[in-house]
């Protein structure tokens, strides 16, 4: 069919089947009765966030179709569905977290502080700016390679400027929205724990870059890998801070 490789076709069909099975399992879990007051999915499926689940599983299920279309168009690439898989997976995880750790009615747990909101804004800025350069990474592999120094320096300057601009703009908006507070002992503890978690992620990233260097990967790719390791470590720092704020230390 459409001249697709058989293993890819079988894998795609299996993937779609797995997505649909996942949806059925979540729906079954959601329709199960529960004790009053117990947290979790039950008796509120699909809850207040049906869009997250539907778009998430939809994206996951569509991934093989996107890959097939890309393969038919280019005859050599099968990896275009990465963004679909990533976004779909993130949406499904977000749905799970929102329902599992949802704030109970009448609770003030949803009252998040300045620092928690600031961490979320920084995460969004990183995802936007580094996400843009992740898309550029595909060009690096597919197109003719530009001189490494020019691309690297340009990307470095642009990333720095954009991160500063987005950071300043978002924090000005946040200050207008709520009063900033001086950090207390809990803020400092959460900051330290976030940095500790980021260290492990960064160390893993450095090891990966070293392996790439030993494997004689082009310098330009190494540059992107290092930037990616920094971005993932920063996301781990900020993400774990948000989790500590929400779930406790």
């Amino acid at each position, binding site marked *: 069919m459409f001249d697709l490789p058989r293993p890819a076709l079988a894998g795609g069909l299996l993937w779609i089947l797995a997505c649909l099975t996942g949806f059925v399992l979540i729906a079954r879990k959601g329709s199960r009765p529960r*004790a009053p007051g*117990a*947290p979790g999915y039950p008796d509120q499926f699909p809850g207040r966030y049906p869009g997250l689940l539907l778009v998430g599983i939809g994206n996951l299920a569509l991934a093989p179709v996107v890959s097939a279309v890309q393969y038919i168009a280019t005859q050599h690439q099968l990896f275009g569905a990465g963004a679909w898989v990533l976004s779909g997976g993130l949406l499904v995880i977000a749905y799970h977290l929102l329902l*599992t*750790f949802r704030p109970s009615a009448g*609770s*003030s*747990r949803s*009252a*998040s*502080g300045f620092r*928690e909101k600031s961490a979320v804004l920084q995460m969004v800025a990183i995802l936007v700016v580094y996400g843009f350069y992740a898309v550029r990474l595909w060009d690096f592999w597919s197109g003719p390679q530009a001189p490494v120094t020019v691309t690297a320096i340009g990307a470095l300057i642009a990333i720095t400027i954009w991160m500063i601009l987005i950071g300043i703009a978002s924090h000005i908006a946040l200050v207008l929205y709520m009063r900033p*507070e*001086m*950090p*207390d*002992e*809990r*803020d400092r503890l959460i900051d330290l724990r976030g940095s500790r978690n980021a260290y492990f992620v960064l160390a893993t990233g450095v090891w990966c870059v070293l392996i790439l260097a030993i494997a004689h990967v082009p310098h330009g790719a190494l540059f992107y890998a290092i930037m990616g390791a920094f971005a993932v470590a920063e996301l781990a720092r900020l993400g774990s801070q948000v989790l500590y*704020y929400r*779930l*406790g*230390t």
Partner: protein
Amino acid sequence: MKLRAPHVSPVPQTRVRNNLRALRFHHGEMTQQELADRVGLTRQTIIAVEQGRYSPSLEAAFKIARALGVPLEEVFQYDAEPARDDAPTGSSG
């Protein structure tokens, strides 16, 4: 007959229980923000302590007890058993 394990909250609770909410109420209905200002913490930290999501440092615990005008043991208690979801963290008011 199938026995069901007791439900444990996905939100980790500390083993230090407290009566902060009740004591605030009895202390002139002090707000979380007022208490936070008195002891030098943020309101979010007071909320986290009340809900059992954060155990304050010894210094902060003494400051909280002093701000409420009660001994430390009246505000905070230590549980030998891990806190469960169906056992509230102490706020009774």
